[in-house]
């Protein structure tokens, strides 16, 4: 479907326009046809009528002429007349002319000699002796012929007959004339639309225009004889006069005659009949137009009315409202199929929407609910006010199943588990949250009111779930970690229920417990950890002085000098206050953020080392590194960068790695420590004594120093066990060539004891608390070893 730039007109408008245009076009065509055919028919009729008119007129004139000739012949054959002429008896001649003229109603009687000199005439303007000045006519008579034609005599037009007078020889010319006037012309005409005009030329051609016509007035005469010889056109512009006459000259007089005869036809009746037909056509066209417009309006309404309803239905469907479509009127088969298509579309849409919403709420593999749908389902269930258990499950070793038996078996395993879950779950409400994590709810009966009974219920469920399952030809037994929580006893809302259920499950996973029952407050710790992680991420990104480096001096028991200090991170949060490093460092290690923390620490410590050196203070600063940090290539690069940047040596820095971290993967630790040692860094085993590490392994580590954990030092003065351990540790370390440092020295007794045992360095509140760099500078300036010795 093409899409035009401007919206097309509505179907109704198009249909109306088309119909109106069609009617107007056809009416116009009919009009044109009528116009042309009428025009040519009229022209033909006019031609025919003019021909007939000429014929009739000439016949009438001829008949009249014959009569005149008879009259004239009668006169000239009168013996008395002949005698009078022969004897030149003028008086007698005149009296005879008058007498004869009256008898035949002639208007003019004349007699001339053979040269045309008037002998006698009834017209006073033709006196005796005057030339009757029509030489051709006279000559014709002298040839013995009768002259008959229209002549202008005086100011009048006469139908003139000249005959020879024989006495018996040709001796004179006798003339008899009938004046031509409008009445006489009309007598000759039979058709009232045909008019004849006699004139001595066109108007304006001569100064003395003599005209006689059957037309009513002179204006009509002028208009008529100037008209073209046939109809020119039936069309006339508004305010334009239609052609009134057609006119042509009639070949009725001799060629040299000054009289011209025009025949004119009044065209008014043609125009009237044409215009009447035209008006009828126009009126009919108007009626047809009206009917067509009404008809097309109704048809288009029948067509568009269902379309408009369908448009509304489509909008409803777009809004997700699937309203009834039965009321759509089917006005045509096209609309019917469109409506059916619409209904079909609606059905399909509903189906697809259901499918999509199912997919949106269900796990595609197992058909279990997803997390959001689970919350929804639990919410619905919670409305019953009956307590129920939410049991979270984790498949132990699912990854191994996938790896060893293949993904397909893994999937089948999950499907089988899901099947069991659905069967056991209350109302089938069970969900899958991640690859190997599930949850379901369990009904609690009133008898199962104690925790022990509920644990028993969960255990029975677990037992059923753990039953061996047959997948193809493999018999598989899966083990679960499970945490459960009771609604509404332990959660106010379904959201909280799921969250706490997750906490319980995680606890079960971390503690490797098969079934763990959620305890109050457990989730608060969890929430706080999440919060702290969030804050830590923020402050590391912002570098907003919430994190600070503190330094705890290390005291050399042999020299009485402060030679080293341990860099300790401190976090002062504006809302939470002081956040202990144990908490957030552990979290950072668990979440993989420790690298970020350590790189911040490295940057700050090395800057501070530079500042201390600049202030003339020489201290070896130690940085705590986790196992992750050691193997972090970025940190290795960073340290090198910072050393160069601050113009420091590797020996200025000591890296402290806990015994536990070092011993987790001995081979890897060995490589990394060897690397750092080769680079020149000092290395120290931190928290020694709590890692239960094998001495043989410890002996391999390329470290310079061993730090005895403070748990052996804090109560060293009072506890004999600790004294033995510390003594043997110092002795052993010295045997291995390591220097020994004790941390957590808080009293003089401990100091003295350690000094006696030959410990190399001590660190603790008895020397100094950890402090900021500036405070350290100040403290060093005031430090006096005498206090310790004293």
């Amino acid at each position: 479907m093409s899409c035009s730039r401007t919206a097309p007109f509505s179907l109704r408008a198009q249909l109306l326009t088309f119909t109106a245009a069609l009617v107007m076009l056809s009416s116009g065509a009919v009009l044109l046809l009528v116009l042309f055919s009428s025009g040519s028919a009229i022209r033909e009729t006019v031609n025919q009528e003019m021909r007939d008119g000429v014929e009739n007129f000439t016949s009438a004139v001829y008949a009249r002429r014959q009569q005149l000739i008879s009259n004239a012949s009668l006169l000239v054959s009168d013996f008395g007349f002949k005698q009078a002429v022969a004897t030149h008896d003028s008086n007698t001649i005149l009296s005879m002319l008058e007498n004869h003229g009256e008898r035949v109603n002639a208007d003019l009687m004349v007699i001339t000699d053979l040269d045309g000199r008037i002998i006698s005439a009834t017209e006073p303007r033709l006196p005796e002796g005057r030339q009757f000045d029509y030489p051709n006519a006279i000559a014709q008579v002298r040839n013995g012929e009768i002259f008959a034609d229209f002549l202008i005599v005086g100011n009048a037009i006469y139908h003139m007959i000249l005959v020879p007078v024989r006495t018996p020889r040709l001796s004179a010319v006798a003339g008899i004339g009938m004046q031509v006037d409008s009445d006489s012309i009309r007598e000759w005409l039979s058709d009232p639309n045909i008019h004849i005009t006699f004139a001595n030329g066109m108007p304006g051609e001569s100064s003395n225009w003599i005209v006689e016509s059957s037309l009513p007035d002179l204006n009509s005469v002028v208009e008529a004889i100037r008209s073209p010889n046939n109809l020119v056109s039936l069309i006339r512009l508004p305010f334009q006069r239609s052609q009134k006459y057609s006119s042509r000259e009639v070949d009725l007089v001799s060629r040299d005659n000054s009289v011209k005869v025009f025949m004119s036809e009044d065209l008014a009746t043609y125009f009237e009949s044409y215009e009447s037909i035209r008006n009828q056509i126009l009126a009919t066209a108007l009626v047809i137009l009206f009917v067509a417009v009404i008809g097309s309006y109704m048809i288009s309404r029948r067509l568009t009315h269902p379309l408009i309803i369908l448009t509304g239905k489509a909008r409803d469907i777009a809004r997700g409202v699937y309203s009834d479509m039965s009321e759509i009127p089917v006005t045509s088969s096209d609309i019917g199929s469109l409506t059916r298509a619409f209904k079909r579309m609606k059905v399909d849409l509903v189906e697809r929407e259901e499918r999509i919403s199912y997919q949106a709420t269900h796990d595609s593999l197992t058909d279990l609910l997803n997390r959001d749908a689970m919350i929804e389902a639990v919410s619905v269930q919670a409305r019953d006010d009956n307590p129920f258990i939410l049991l979270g499950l984790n498949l132990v070793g699912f990854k191994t199943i996938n790896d060893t038996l293949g993904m397909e078996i893994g999937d089948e395993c999950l499907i089988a588990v899901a099947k069991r879950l659905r069967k056991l779950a209350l109302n089938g409400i069970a969900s899958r949250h991640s690859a190997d994590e599930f949850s379901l709810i369990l009904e609690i009966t009133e008898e199962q009111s104690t925790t022990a009974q509920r644990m028993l219920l969960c255990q029975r469920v677990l037992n059923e779930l753990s039953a061996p399952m047959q997948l193809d030809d493999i018999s598989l037994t899966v083990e679960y970690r499970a945490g459960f929580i009771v609604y509404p006893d332990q959660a106010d809302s379904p959201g909280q229920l799921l969250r706490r259920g997750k906490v319980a499950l995680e606890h079960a996973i971390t503690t490797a417990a098969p079934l763990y029952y959620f305890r109050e407050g457990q989730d608060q710790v969890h929430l706080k950890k999440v919060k702290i992680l969030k804050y830590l991420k923020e402050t590391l990104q912002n570098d907003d002085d919430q994190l600070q480096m503190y330094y705890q001096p290390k005291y050399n028991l042999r020299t009485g000098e402060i030679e080293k200090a341990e860099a300790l991170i401190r976090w002062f949060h504006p809302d939470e206050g002081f956040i202990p490093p144990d908490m957030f460092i552990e979290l950072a290690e668990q979440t993989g953020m420790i690298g970020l923390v350590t790189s911040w620490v490295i940057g700050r410590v090395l800057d501070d080392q530079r500042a201390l050196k600049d202030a003339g203070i020489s201290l070896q600063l130690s940085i705590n590194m986790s196992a992750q940090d050691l193997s972090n290539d970025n940190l290795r690069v960073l340290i090198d960068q910072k050393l160069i940047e601050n113009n420091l040596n590797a020996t200025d820095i000591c890296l402290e790695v806990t015994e536990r971290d070092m011993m987790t993967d001995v081979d890897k630790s060995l490589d990394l420590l060897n690397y750092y040692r080769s680079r020149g860094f000092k290395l120290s085993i931190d928290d020694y004594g709590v890692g239960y590490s094998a001495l043989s392994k410890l002996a391999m580590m390329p470290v310079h120093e061993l730090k005895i954990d403070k748990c052996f030092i804090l109560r060293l003065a009072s506890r004999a066990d600790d004294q033995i351990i510390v003594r043997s540790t110092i002795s052993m370390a010295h045997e291995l060539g390591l220097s020994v440092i004790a941390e957590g020295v808080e009293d003089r007794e401990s100091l003295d004891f350690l000094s006696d045992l030959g410990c190399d360095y001590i660190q603790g509140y008895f020397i100094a608390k950890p402090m900021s760099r500036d405070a350290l500078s100040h403290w060093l300036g005031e430090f006096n070893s005498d206090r310790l010795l004293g």
Partner: protein
Amino acid sequence: MPERQAVRRIQSSVVALLSLFCADSFAESYQIRVTDMTGQPLPDAVVALNTSGYSSPAKTIRIMDQIDRQFSPHVLAVNAGDLVSFPNSDNIRHHVYSFSEAKAFEIKLYADRPESPIDFLRPGIVVLGCNIHDDMVGYIYVTPEGQSAAVTDKNGYASVSGAGELKSVSIWHERLSLMESEQTTLGAEALENYRSGDYSFLITVDPEVPPREPAGDHVHHGFGNSMRR
């Protein structure tokens, strides 16, 4: 009608013979032929000879008959004082008249009822008409004293006798002029131009009036060709 023409010719011959008898025995016979300018013979032309040796002829009765609504002969030359009888050979009435100065008269003729002859004393041309039949025109040439006259036949020949010296020849023909009495007179000298023999002349004249068409009157209408279907 050839029979009637034959009769008429016989009568004419009789008249000519009579006149020969009455004429001077010394008289010469002149043969004169009259033609028009194109050489066509002019019948019914009157040839009148004026000779010195004239002797007055005896008075005779001449005949001007009406045959087939025509005067017969068409032209009759008589001597002054001759009588002319007007019989009517047609079985219809005729009303013969003349308004000519030489002799004006009218005579109503009925078939088989002859009137008394009319005498023609004055020389000149008498035009004869019939008041009933306008087409009937005839002429009587009244020859003056001292002249002898004859009418040309259909070949234009006229034989006229004359005695003595030939002084002049007068030729009259109805078509010679619109004026009916006009005639051409040739003197002795002029005649020499027309001489064709000792006593014969071939005289050409120029008729003013064209020959009449035998169809009678016809109307010339002013109508154009459209009328002449």
